Each structure stands twice: as structure tokens, then as C-alpha cells.
């Protein structure tokens, strides 16, 4: 007795050619062409701004933008992508800033050297803050990290070690980054380039995390912890890595800000700064890659340029609070996805959008889930 074996239709060529849908794969290639187009602009911009009247202020805004964009991007990774509601990011920022400031001011290290201690001190602080939160979920994480924040603020303002903390004023007269002959008369330009390099490196690494199996694991842990763990995600390792990773870049940004301003004060730990950073993420786009970058730029413009001075200044906080409240409810993914969709529709027209969707869509758009 024989069994009829159905003929298999196996096409070797086709099998070799099998490719994943680019959006399904976590590994996405950077768009080099776009970067190549942006690079000359980014490099030439400060030279142009430095020669224009009033351009110095714009340079200052751009440097501030680089600093806070690094912080919001890493906080976004922690807060929105991974669903760990840590409000301690600003405490970690302060640890980085104080480390760099103290080493440069009281130990006498060159700022170019002391700035590198900031990210490592911040990472160590992240382990201290991160370990107790590992067993906690949701609202409890908010509270324990707020407690750390308050403790640190209390220590900085009231501690007996005033040489370290600087008391209520913080550290003043911290040496700034020294560019030697290069920076002669072009200090802001050199700061801009330093900021640009830091920003680019941080953004690249964060982008890499976003589009890696690890980034997937973070989102999976956020959406269903039990399921993610049962599928082999090591919850402990993933969360601790995330804490340290985000803190490292936050600390780097803090070091840069300290050596750019030449000072760091306890007001950085105030609720106002925290809310500002939160607003940058929420308004830009909660849990999306471009959101925090866009939101940081938007809020810096809004606060430092449009609402600065005049009668509108008083309404700054009111506007900010209402924006936060309304966006969380009515545009949970923030303004960036809304604007991006609008622009795409304008450029391509609604009918072509669908056929090209798979290739042309921003890679992160496919992954970004609504606020969760």
C-alpha cells in the first residue's frame, strides 16, 4: 500500500528572496540620504547665526534645545515607551550636573574631563533609584521617585556639606568648557557644535534602542508584563539596563548644561522644570521617537521666544497646564503625529498615501501605539 505524497511546490529562489516586512522587523536602517541633506545645514547654521544680529540668542536656544532634547528623549524611553513612571529623571540630571560642577569647581579638573564623570555618576544614581522601584508598579513608582527627588532637593538646600552642594544657591562660577583658540570670539558656535555632537550621539543610540528587540521588550513589558516575562523577557535586566541607559545620557546633558551656564542651582529640581519636561514629551508625542524632539523645540520656542516678556508671560503656566490636560485627553499621541499626518496628506494627497504607506511612513509610526 502506498501513500500518495503530494508534490511540494518549493521554489528555492523565492525562499531565498523572502524578506520581512520592513515595518515588522525591529531593525530599521537610518535614512542616510535624509541625514546627509540635514548635515550641512546643521553644520553651517551656527556660522550664519553668529554673523547675524540677534543670532546669538537663537544659538543659545539651540544649545538649550540640544540639552533638553537629550533629557526628554531618554525620559520618553523610560516613561512612555516602557511605562515606568519615574519622576526621578530630573534628580538624576541634578546628580550629573553637581558631579561635573563639583569636580571642576572644587577638585580643579578641566571641564573637558569633569564632564565625563557626569554620565557615570548619573548612571550610578540611576541604580540607586532604580533598584527599589523594580518591585513596584504604576503609581507607586511615581511616588517613590518623587520621594527621591524631594530627598535630594532637601539635601542640596539644607545639607551641612555646603561646599559640595553650594546650599540654596547651588554651584556658581563653575568653569565653562574651554575651546582655546578655536573658540576665540566664537564660543557659542563651539558650544553649539559640542551640543550637536552630544545630541546626535544620544539620538542615534536612542533610535537604535527604539528599533531593537530590546525596545520591543520594553514595550511588551509595558503592555503586558506577565505575557512578556512568560515569553522570555528578563524583566529585571531590561528595566535596570533601561534605567542606566537613560540616566547615562541625561547625565551627559547635565554636564554640558553645567559647563555651558557655568552654574547649577537647586531650582533645577523644582516642580516647574519637571512639568516642563513632561509637557515637552506629552505635547510632542508620548511614546513616539520624533515626539520629544519636536516637543522640546516647540516648548522652548513657546516659552523663551513667543511668551517671553510682555503681558503673555503671566499666562505661561496656565497655557502649559491646560495644554497638558487637553492633549492627554484629546490627542493622546501628542501633536507631532497629528502634524506629521497632516503634512504627509498635503504633500502626497490622500489617495497616494495608502499605496506607499509601507515604505514611506516614518518607521516609528508603525510601532507607536496610542498612549498606554
Amino acid at each position: 500500500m502506498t501513500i500518495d505524497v503530494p508534490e511540494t511546490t518549493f521554489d528555492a529562489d523565492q525562499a531565498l528572496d523572502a524578506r520581512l516586512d520592513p515595518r515588522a522587523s525591529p531593525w530599521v536602517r537610518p535614512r542616510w540620504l535624509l541625514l546627509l541633506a540635514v548635515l550641512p545645514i546643521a553644520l553651517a547654521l551656527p556660522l550664519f547665526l553668529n554673523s547675524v544680529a540677534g543670532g546669538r540668542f537663537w544659538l543659545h536656544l539651540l544649545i538649550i534645545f540640544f540639552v533638553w532634547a537629550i533629557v526628554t528623549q531618554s525620559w520618553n524611553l523610560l516613561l512612555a515607551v516602557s511605562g515606568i513612571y519615574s519622576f526621578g529623571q530630573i534628580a538624576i540630571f541634578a546628580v550629573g550636573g553637581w558631579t561635573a560642577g563639583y569636580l571642576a569647581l572644587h577638585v580643579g579638573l578641566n571641564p573637558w574631563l569633569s564632564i565625563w564623570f557626569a554620565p557615570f555618576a548619573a548612571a550610578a544614581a540611576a541604580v540607586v533609584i532604580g533598584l527599589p522601584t523594580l518591585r513596584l508598579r504604576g503609581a507607586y513608582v511615581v511616588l517613590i521617585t518623587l520621594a527621591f527627588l524631594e530627598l535630594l532637593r532637601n539635601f542640596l538646600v539644607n545639607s551641612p556639606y555646603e561646599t559640595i552642594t553650594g546650599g540654596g544657591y547651588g554651584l556658581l562660577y563653575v568653569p565653562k568648557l574651554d575651546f582655546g583658540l578655536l573658540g576665540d570670539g566664537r564660543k557659542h558656535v563651539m558650544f553649539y557644535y559640542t551640543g550637536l555632537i552630544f545630541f546626535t550621539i544620544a539620538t542615534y543610540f536612542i533610535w537604535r534602542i527604539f528599533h531593537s528587540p530590546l525596545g520591543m521588550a520594553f514595550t511588551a513589558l509595558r503592555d503586558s508584563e506577565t505575557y512578556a516575562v512568560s515569553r522570555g523577557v528578563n524583566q529585571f535586566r531590561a528595566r535596570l539596563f533601561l534605567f542606566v541607559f537613560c540616566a547615562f545620557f541625561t547625565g551627559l546633558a547635565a554636564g554640558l548644561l553645567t559647563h555651558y551656564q557655568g552654574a547649577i542651582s537647586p531650582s533645577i529640581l523644582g516642580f516647574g522644570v519637571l512639568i516642563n519636561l513632561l509637557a515637552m514629551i506629552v505635547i510632542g508625542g508620548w511614546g513616539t521617537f520624533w515626539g520629544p524632539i519636536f516637543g522640546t523645540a516647540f516648548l522652548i520656542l513657546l516659552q523663551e521666544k513667543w511668551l517671553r516678556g510682555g503681558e503673555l508671560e503671566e499666562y505661561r503656566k496656565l497655557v502649559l497646564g491646560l495644554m497638558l490636560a487637553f492633549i492627554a485627553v484629546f490627542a493622546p499621541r501628542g501633536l507631532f503625529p497629528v502634524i506629521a499626518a497632516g503634512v504627509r496628506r498635503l504633500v502626497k494627497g490622500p489617495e497616494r498615501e495608502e499605496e506607499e504607506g509601507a515604505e514611506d511612513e516614518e518607521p516609528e509610526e508603525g510601532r507607536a501605539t496610542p498612549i498606554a
Partner: protein
Amino acid sequence: MSELLQSVYSGLLHGSVYGLMAIGLTVIWGAMRLLNLAHGSLYLVGGYVGWTVVNKLSMPIGVAVPIGVAGAAIAGLLMYGLFIRPLVGRPGWDSATLITTVGFGIAIEAGVLLLYGPQVKAIPGLFSGSFVYERVLITYQGLLVMAVAAVCLLSVSTYIRVSRRGMAIRAVSQDVDAAKLMGIPIDTTFAIVMALSAGLAGLAGVLLSSTFYLSPTSGFQPMILAIVVTILGGLGSIKGTIVAAYSIGLLESFVNVYVGPSWGLPVLFGTMIVVLTLRPNGLFGVGEARRL
């Protein structure tokens, strides 16, 4: 002796404040799984409404207290209707409510600053006068606050344990879907919880502004401490919250008196970190199955 009495007196007073603030937070958490970060602003609403009634409409403080409570309750209902209700049943409840309450809180704080300016304000107490016992200054208003707080805490916990509405609140806090299937009006229950909790925050605001003055930022610290209390008591546990409120108040004032005034807050936050590390659900925390 007088130091001991001083610690106990101010500990009980602070404990009453924390209790009034914290019980609202814990009831909301229990019923709605919502950490209301606008709670401090509701305290402000109560205080400023009370101040307006006394100083602008020149009415007695006895009238101002209920009006302040009502004002805060209305603000709470407004927040619920505008920002919380549209989120019910949507994914991402945790983060969205966190952000929206923070935003609403900031907006209220900024609004108060715009309307009333940054100056410190004071409301007269219901009772003026005080007496000195063993070199400790005891005000009648302070005693009144303690009594009112104790009555409120007891009646809220009784209300939730005994009354029909309270049963509905407990049912909702155990399982929203099952409660809905049993015919409990979820929307009304949430609104009642919100108004109750906001009203209690407002009451704290009106009563306390005679002891601890009123300014646009003065809602923040009571809220943070109320949060510490709810954490230690276990979010969602009413009994735990009441015990924790008085323990925290006493602990704080003993540290302030015997160790030094700048140590009170650090000790509290340190305690909170240790407790949460050892018992992630708080001291009296109840698991997911049974809340309230």
C-alpha cells in the same frame, strides 16, 4: 513634659490635615485607580473660595466653610467631566490620567496666581483665642480642626462601609465590569467619589488657611505628604490611611521637636522609600482583589 505635649499636639494637628487630604486620594485610587495629582489644587480652591467669601463678600467664616467645600467639589466635578470621563474605558488610563491631572493642577495654580497674586493670605479661624497649658500654645481653632477631621474620617469610612452608595463604591473598586453588569451606575459613582474627595480637600483648605497661611503654591506640600500617607497606609485602604495619617503626623512632629526642624521631611521620605522597598503595597496595603 512640655516638649512631649508640643509634639503630640502638633502631631495630631498635622495628622488631621494629612488625614483629610489623604482619605480623598485613597478613595479615588480605590474606586477609579486614579492617582489624582490635582488634589493639592483642590485644596487651594477650597482655601481661596473661603477667603473670597470672607474678605470680599464679608460673610462670616461659618458660611465660608461650606461654600469653600462646595467650590472644591465643583472644581473636582469639572475636572472629572472635562478630563477624566472621556478617558474611562480607553487604553492607557494610567498615564493619561496622570498627565491630565497634573495639567489641571498646574492650570488651577496658575489661575489662582493670576487672580489673587502671589501674596500670602490668611482666613480668620472659626474660633479665635487660645490657652497655654504646660507652656504649650493651644488654639481653639487647632482643636476644632482635630475634631472636624476625626468626625469626617469616621463618617467617610462609615459611609463607605455601611451605606448603599458606599457599597456601590466598594463594588466598583473591586471590579468595574462586574459592578456595571449588576446595574451600578459607574458614571454616577465616579462622580460621587470625585466630589467627595475634592470636597474633603476643600475642607482642609478652608480650615487650615487660618493656621498655615494661603498662597498659590501652598497646596503642593499637603498633597505630597498626603501621598506619603496613602502610600504608607496602602493605596485604597481607608483604615490604613487613617492610621498612617496620625502616625505620620506624630512621627514628623516628634522628629521636628527632638531632632531638628529640618529633619522632618527627609525622615518621612526616607521612611516611605524603606517601606515601599520592603512592602510594595504599603503597610496596610491590600492586594488587587480587595480594595477599600
